[in-house]
């Protein structure tokens, strides 16, 4: 038994760390302040092959494993959570539905650019009246002649309004239940609302979407009619491992920044790290980071082995995102007043951490999934 990542994983980690340090870190605070989505850097992430890691070479992918994707997301997230979620959502919510449920025509049409990171895909599941309760989807799609006509609205959709967004996969109610559709960006009748004013993830792109008689060709149905609900649940399992990796990056960054500060900052005649009140908090944090790492990469390993991941993904997501919140709270405390200032990165990590416990299934939903897997009679 071994818990070491491979040499390839480590080389990828070194590469993404270097890329993030050179191309992202110097600008992260500025992008955050101005809510700027850095299209050129996302494209550069594409050139590194990050959006294609897990996809087959046939569509230009790298044929790599899910653990590699987690390494990349963790390392981006260690520097800038917005760039981490842009990759995570671009792969897990953008390209993955087309890869998993599309036919070869749909894959050939959309995947090459999504895999290259020269375009981004989005996934519209959440609605103003239904997030956790995604089965309550109200958006409707009706087959009229050889076109689907979509009406309704979606809320909080990542990557749906960037300059390079190519498609939005949308779930909608049809005669058979809930189905999924590929809606190309710019389709008349699909209105991308102005960007949200968010607490964090300022450099990540998030909009609501309104559909008014939005018409798409019949062949844009993704997967079988009525299977949309079950399909997106399995998409979310993968996404949860990716969010766990993103949270791990945040927690690790907060730990590293705090360790550094606790040795530099002096009070009462010596470094603040010598106070047990801080050092024990950092010890606990180090344990949480280690646990988050192990849960994340265990879940990724199960996925790479083709084993069931539902429970492992929920556990990893639940634990790592709560660890990220704890880490952000401890880090801002270690930094004292400076932790409250936007000039220190921990303030940004603090604002960025909260969404981790909400997106791709709230902590409550993870606990519900875990309880159900334990055989408890949850409703």
């Amino acid at each position: 038994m071994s818990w070491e990542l491979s040499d390839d994983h480590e080389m990828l980690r070194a590469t993404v760390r270097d890329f993030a340090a050179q191309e992202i870190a110097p600008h992260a605070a500025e992008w955050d302040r101005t809510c700027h989505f850095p299209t050129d850097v996302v494209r550069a992430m594409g050139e590194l092959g990050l959006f294609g890691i897990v996809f087959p070479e046939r569509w230009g992918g790298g044929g790599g494993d899910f653990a590699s994707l987690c390494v990349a997301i963790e390392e981006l997230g260690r520097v800038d959570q917005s760039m981490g979620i842009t990759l995570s959502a671009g792969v897990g919510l953008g390209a993955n539905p087309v890869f998993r449920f599309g036919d070869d025509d749909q894959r050939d049409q959309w995947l090459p650019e999504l895999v290259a990171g020269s375009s981004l895909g989005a996934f519209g599941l959440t609605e103003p009246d239904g997030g956790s309760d995604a089965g309550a989807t109200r958006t409707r799609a009706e087959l009229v002649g050889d076109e689907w006509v979509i009406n309704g609205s979606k809320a909080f959709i990542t990557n749906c309004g960037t300059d390079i967004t190519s498609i939005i996969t949308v779930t909608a109610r049809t005669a058979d239940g809930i189905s999924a559709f590929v809606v190309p960006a710019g389709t008349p009748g699909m209105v991308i609302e102005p960007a949200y004013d968010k607490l964090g993830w300022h450099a990540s792109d998030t909009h609501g979407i309104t559909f008014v008689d939005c018409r798409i060709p019949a062949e844009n149905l993704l997967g079988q009619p009525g299977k949309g609900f079950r399909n997106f649940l399995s998409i979310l399992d993968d996404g949860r491992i990716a969010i766990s990796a993103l949270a791990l990056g945040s927690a690790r960054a907060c730990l590293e920044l705090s360790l550094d500060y606790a040795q530099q900052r002096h009070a009462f005649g010596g470094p603040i790290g010598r106070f047990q009140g801080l050092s024990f908090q950092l010890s606990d944090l180090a344990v949480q980071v280690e646990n988050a790492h192990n849960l994340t990469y265990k879940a990724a390993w199960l996925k790479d082995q083709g084993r069931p991941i539902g429970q492992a993904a929920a556990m990893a997501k639940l634990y790592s995102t709560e660890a990220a919140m704890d880490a952000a709270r401890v880090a801002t405390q270690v930094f004292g007043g400076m932790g409250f200032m936007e000039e220190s990165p921990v303030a940004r990590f603090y604002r960025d951490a909260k969404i981790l416990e909400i997106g791709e299934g709230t902590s409550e939903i993870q606990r519900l999934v875990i309880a159900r897997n334990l055989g408890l009679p949850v409703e």
Partner: protein
Amino acid sequence: MNVIVCVKQIPDPALPGELDPSTNTLKRDGKLILDESDSYGVEMALQLVTAAGGGEVSLVSMAPNDEVSGLRTALAMGAAKAVLVSDPSLAGADALTTAKVLAAATKRLGDVDLIIAGTESSDGYTGTVPEQLAEVLGLPSITFAKTVEIADGTLKVDRQTEAGYDEVTCPLPAVVSVTAGVVEPRYPSFKGIMAAKSKPVDTVTAADLGVESVSWAQQITSVEDAPAREAGEVIEDDGESFNKIVEFLDNLKVI
């Protein structure tokens, strides 16, 4: 167009290094990485081969314990293959011995148009290996290249000097040392990383190369701490102090 790049694998400069007290040389038994100052040579070689429309970039390296981590990075950037000389008898070898070994290693790679090296490594800093290598191979040597171009079988180099640069030409094959920072080394792509592990690394000993009786004359007799930095000069501003600053910068030849 075939280019060989000499790359050194060094202890990670981000970690505290340690000297071997018996030889006064850097301990190299941990994991080694590609010397950043060689990543410029690798990038330049890849660009030259692309510009020539064909050929490949090969690597030669000398490192203990069959270390390939740094080579894998350069292979992931796009180099095609490598010769690694790894031999306990070479531990602590001086610059000239290194140059002889590297020269023999380049010969294993057959015909070559150009050999590129960094001007100096980031751990040893002797800055003499490229010229010694050229001498051993009997090839022309150009140092401190900031740009390298090849036209009609001739090498054209802009050679960095204190005052500016010299334009130098010379016939091929030749050995060129490349100044750090003159090109933007590419990041290895994910596909490059995946491909690197199946690229050939020919691991050989000094004897395999026909380099006999390895011994060297150079010895590092002692190592001292660098003198602590002296206090700077404080200039009181009397309204004319800019003259002193100009004079100071002028003495440094930076303006």
